């Protein structure tokens, strides 16, 4: 008996004590090991796809649906998109449309674009640094690297426009831009100047443009492509007031004939499908990948069944609406006097308000829809605006404008405007065409134009805390968002905006 007992005790000792050497090695299933991820191009594709997914994931609050949320916030800072009462995007706690929280370094609306773009940059950096050593076809490596470079350039482009003072062509642009980590282990860097940031943006885009032609083709339009990189390059050049370059890249995209402008039926289909022939780059959202309340369509669609959509119709600047020709298909995107007949809604719980929009419609329940990041229409408008700013190119400008405008309005005739009037006509087209797609703040800032909401008859002053006028970007420091407090506190090299 004693022996059996001794055996049992000793056995249990040895059984458990004789743990294998790797007893304490464990690995997660919810995450992947860094080293393993960059061993092959197949695995490394995870990182670029992770970035695209992140772009339509909720950042923090429900009205921060990634890139779509930033697009809306930028438009709510303008005068063309507004709501009848102070609510999401317009009150200080839930957006910057009231022009207060963008100067509050502790506001989540200051941290949101900052962290959002830097997280994209950090992951793109990891891909750029590691992809050359991965196993796999050279063409795939080139594609991944080109996509990562393009998205890094695009992210810095957004950051510098939001946190830096505007780019002024012909000046040194030595004002502070943003810090520029270019590798995953670049931490706590000082802010580079606006000029340095634009130099890097252009370098990234140029590097990508050199890689794309021999890279493997993108699977779908959620991926950045040669044309998307050209389109971004055109945007950047326009912002830098480098009109020659802007016109050149916009034209390259148009001439590539890979995309075509929407017809009237497509235009009224809700801006929710990446297969639309006009889309160059967009989010590609599967039906099980939506965030019911934290999606772009949970904010801006007219039919999503959320309390925000039901109760707060998004309205257009009534003065801008008045300028749209009746024959223009875009005029039907808004309803000046909605009724049950001319604007049927899913249920009586939906509110109707004058000038409410029906531009964006959900593709699937609950609030699923793809998000348009770049459309071909923009290339025509960039080509037109750039040429209108170049001596002797007005004819080309009018021609580009005509192609787009004629598609939207069958009665459109070639513009007879010249000079400033022509440019204004192009900008009017831009405002109508891209309502809700995130252009207005950036356009005012690059054009150094003040914001004036007092010219908008249906703008409700109380909805934005009475903030109706903001001086031009060159004189009013509110066009530069504050650097988030958590960056200032963690990064001793960072400097706050004034």
């Amino acid at each position, binding site marked *: 008996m004693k022996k059996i007992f001794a055996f049992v*005790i000793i056995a*249990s000792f040895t059984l*458990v004590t004789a743990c294998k050497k790797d007893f*304490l090695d464990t690995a997660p299933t919810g995450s992947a090991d*860094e080293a393993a991820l960059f061993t092959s191009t197949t695995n490394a594709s995870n990182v670029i796809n992770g970035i695209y997914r992140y772009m339509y994931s909720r950042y923090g609050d429900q009205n921060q649906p990634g890139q779509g949320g930033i697009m809306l916030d930028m438009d709510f800072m303008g005068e063309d998109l507004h709501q009848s009462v102070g609510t999401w995007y317009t009150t*200080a706690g839930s957006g910057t449309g009231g022009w207060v929280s963008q*100067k509050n370094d502790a506001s989540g609306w200051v941290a949101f674009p900052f962290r959002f773009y830097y997280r994209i940059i950090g992951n793109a950096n990891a891909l750029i640094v590691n992809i050359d050593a991965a196993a796999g076809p050279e063409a795939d490596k080139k594609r991944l690297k080109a996509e990562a470079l393009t998205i890094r350039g695009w992210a810095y482009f957004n950051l510098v426009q939001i946190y830096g003072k505007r780019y002024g062509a012909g000046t040194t642009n030595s004002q502070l831009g943003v810090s520029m980590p270019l590798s995953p282990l670049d*931490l706590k860097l000082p802010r580079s100047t606006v000029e340095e940031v634009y130099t890097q943006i252009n370098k990234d885009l140029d590097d990508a443009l050199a890689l794309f032609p021999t890279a493997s083709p993108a699977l779908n339009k959620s991926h950045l492509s040669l044309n998307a990189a050209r389109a971004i390059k055109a945007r950047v050049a326009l912002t830098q007031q480098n009109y020659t370059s802007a016109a050149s890249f916009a034209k390259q995209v148009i001439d590539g004939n890979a995309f075509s402008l929407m017809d009237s039926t497509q235009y009224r289909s809700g801006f929710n499908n990446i297969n639309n022939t006009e889309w160059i780059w967009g989010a590609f959202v599967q039906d099980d990948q939506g965030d019911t309340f934290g999606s772009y369509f949970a904010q801006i669609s007219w039919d999503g069944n959320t309390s925000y959509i039901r109760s707060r119709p998004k309205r257009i600047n009534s003065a801008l609406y008045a300028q749209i020709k009746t024959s223009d298909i875009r005029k039907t995107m808004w309803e000046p006097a909605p009724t049950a007949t001319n604007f049927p809604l899913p249920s009586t719980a939906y509110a109707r308000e004058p000038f409410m929009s029906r531009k964006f419609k959900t593709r699937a329940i609950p609030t699923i829809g793809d998000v348009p990041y770049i459309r071909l229409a923009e290339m025509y408008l960039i080509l037109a605006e750039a040429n209108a700013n170049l001596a002797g190119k007005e004819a080309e400008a009018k021609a580009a404008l005509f192609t787009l405008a004629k598609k939207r309005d069958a009665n459109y005739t070639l513009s007879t405007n010249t000079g400033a009037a022509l440019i204004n006509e192009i900008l009017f087209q831009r405002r109508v065409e891209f309502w809700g797609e995130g252009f207005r703040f950036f356009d005012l800032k690059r054009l150094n134009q003040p914001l004036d909401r007092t010219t908008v008859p249906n703008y409700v002053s*109380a909805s934005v805390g009475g903030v109706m006028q903001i001086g031009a970007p060159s004189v009013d420091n509110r066009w530069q968002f504050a650097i988030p407090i958590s960056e200032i506190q963690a990064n001793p090299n960072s400097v706050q905006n004034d």
Partner: protein
Amino acid sequence: MRIFLLLLLGMFVVCTNLLAQDRTITGRIVDAQGSGVPNASVTIKGTALGTTTATDGAFTLSVPETARTLIVSSVGFQNFEVSILNQSNVTVTLTSVVGSMDEVVVVAYGAQKRESITGSVSTIGSKQLETRVTTNITQALAGAAPGISATSGNGQPGSSAAIRIRGFGSVNASSAPLYVVDGFPYEGFLGDLNTNDIETISLLKDASSTALYGARAANGVVLITTKKGKTAEPRVNIVVSSGFSQRGIPEYDRVGTNDYYPVMWQALKNSLQYPNSGTGLSESAAAAQASATIANQLIYNPYNVPNGSIVGTDGKLNPSATLLYNDFDWFGPLSQNGPRNEVSMSTSAKMNKSDYYISLNYLKDEGFVIRSDYERATARVSLNSQMKSWLRSGINLSGVIVKSNQASGDGGNTIINPFVFARRIGPIYPVRAFSTTGTPVLDAEGNQVYDFGQHAGSINRPQGAFPGRHVIYETLLNQSISNRNSIIARTFLEGKFLRDFTATANVGLDLNNTRGKGFQNRIVGDGVTAGGTSSTSSNEFRTISANQLLNYRRSFGAHDVGVLVGHENQWVNETYFNGNRRGMNLDGNVELINFVTLGGVNGSFDNLRRDAYLSRLNYGYNNKYFAEFSYRRDGSSRFAPESRWGNFYSVGASWFIKRESFLTNVDWLNELKIRAAYGTVGNDALGSYYEYQGLYGLGFNNATEPGALASSLSNNDLTWEVNKTLSLGIDFGLFKNRISGTLEAFDRGSSELLFDVPQGLSAIVTSRTENIGAMSNKGLELQLNADVVRTRDFNWDFQLNATSLKNEITKLPRGQAITSGTKRLAEGKDINAFYLRQWYGVDPDDGAGLYFANPGLTTGFRISKTGDTVVTNPTNARFEYSGSAIPDVFGSFGSSVDFKGVGLSFLLNYQLGGKFYDGNYQGLLSPAYGSSIHADVLKSWQKPGDVTDFPRLDIANAGNFNAQSNRFLIDASYLSIRNIAVSYSFGKNLLSRLKVGQLKFYVSGENLAVISKRKGLNPAESFNGTNSAVYTPNRVLSAGLNVSF
């Protein structure tokens, strides 16, 4: 070996011979009040023979002719020797000794007499728990011993209170103590333990007592030991209690219905008069516009006057305005007196070679918020058997079934959280729907419908009043259920050999299968968008622990030696699965099959492992001098292979001075002991199991392509956080132990602190876990007990404990401070030091909220009348340290009186000093259309010249004027009436006629009141002095009955 066996057998025979029984002694053991003392041990001096007393204190014992003396001992009483020469019946009255050194205390891997303990251990016995009606045992730990601080817990039935022992051990790793249940670290839910099963709770506070638990004992250990059979006569105990829960802390004072319109009018008018850009309107123009348009922003008009004339241009409510309806109490329909009923039954006995304890418990505790409850059934079997003289085995097995409806969104700032919605909705928005003329809106059945924005003719409330949502209706229709099946099992096999050796193999198993069920209806709320949603989640949490211990114990004359060596390892597995579907088919069925479209499915598996070698040496000399050494080597899978092993040790010594010859004749001094201990323990309790690894989080799929994003930076140097404690204590008992207590000083330092070091928002991931810095907690603890009256019929005692603690960060890398939230960690400051923008006051000219300006500001500031540079934009405000959340002194005091069976006791918790950042109050001060607002805004600035500390109400500047600053700090001192109990124990005569051992009735109140500096504030909500919209703690009133026979 064979010789030994023969020897053993021989001894057995000898012993058996000794047992030649030839006379019987009967007797009764009673306490000072004459009540029988159950479970007292009665042994024959010089032998191992003996018995234990029955419930009424009676015993019967056969003794050999040679027996001269009986020794009577019982926990909580002094040992007593009684002569049995020429006696066959004895009655012994035992004297109780508070803090007795003979008490046996459960310690790491065993039990020790209190006299030999060199470390710091506090004990709570089942008696103290008897009248504490708590669903979760942690609620009873607050104030139970010095050095213990506890949060108030929360009102969700079954939830745990957080406990800290002697300050804060860590910054980012856990500072919670290790819970050990019946010998093994407990990984389950504390709410799964039946309080009635608990025999003792030992709180191990210093390194000497905890070192043997090495890993994770850095923050102290709470040792919970369940009951075992102790009486020869089988004993049955039944406990029944019944009561109800109420809200324990009142709501903040908010502006009432008739003040709301005028207050919001002011906020709109001021924004027009003092705009952020351009020139403002004149006062009269601003007032006129505000009067004309305020109703457009607030949308609802509950008055009998038109929208444009609710508030006059004088800012006052139109005198002829009367309410069309009055249905604005949102808390009312959400609240209830939640019944709480519990019944427990146990039976136990100790037969000659086996003992058993079997219990059943059923509890249903409904919260004071509707549809929140906790229903639990537990069963426990504890069975131990001495199979052979040298072989013992036992099992302690508990099965638990829990079903709990959860109040939604607790602590989060979400609409479904009743404490967000009901607190923040403006007081002009009715619960039920009314037409614009004030008539109730009825449904087809004639019942008034809720005002949820989706009935015919409804209008949407403004954003601040949650348009289209209705927390009451949603709470009634939705489901949020957590079901849990748990098994807590402990088993051991123990053999003695070579006389002084004991080998023990222990195995412990904690299994928790939690099934979460979420249903969101399609009528109102989050489920509407997708036509009703249902989700099911499953969390399987499995911990297997095993240890093998070898004990040696021997006395050589005056020398007592004990040696323990052992090995222990632990496997923790977590399996997670979750699925959801949308598009409800038939009403009433909330299971997944009744939903049309797949929403998503997800799952993962995680594991954690630990391995350890441990040893301890105890030495005692002459029962006066005691020393203890321990050493433990721990490995954890949380660290990289090269960094995962840590070595921890402790040394301790105690001197029982009272037993020195020079004190034996000092009658007034009954006990005097000093002790000192030093030791180190480790901490690996990080948020994730894989903190050292550089990882990319899966699941970021882009359409059909798989995706991942960087989630952590690798750190192969990451290793154990080390906690070092020096503890010096003195235990004393005076005047026949009428006054007794302990005074203790400790210095608890942590080094290699596990820190989430912020990398800034521009980095690939925003923080990286590193071992940096060091911290210390220095403190004094005092425990005092006084038996004011100690007679047969009347007893009155009093207990006080107090702890003073000073925390200090002693080292940070490169001395660089780390700021996050309301705190900044810096050398020389404490872990909960507030670092906030500095509020200056209100500008009497325009009512702007002012902050002290950040030095070096060149534009955008004002110079105040007293010459200070101030700003209105908080971004430009100066930060400064502004006190700490750590109080000066905290503790508890209590008293109990017993007169002829009538008992009265109370326990108060207190805290003096410390600051609290009242974020709930801050939120209530910022005006927003539709949101409620604190009554203090009635003191706001209104016209130039007003001197006040409340800035002008201004809808556009609400964020700037009410930004996070030291303005919202408040003194955190409080006094909490934790428990009051009144009881009556029936007298012996009646009981013996009823053949009942004990019969006791009691009425008990838990968490009766909290006295703090602001109505609505709960200063005990957190240790770091911040709050959120949590389920407010409850007050429980109950009556109970405890009977045993």
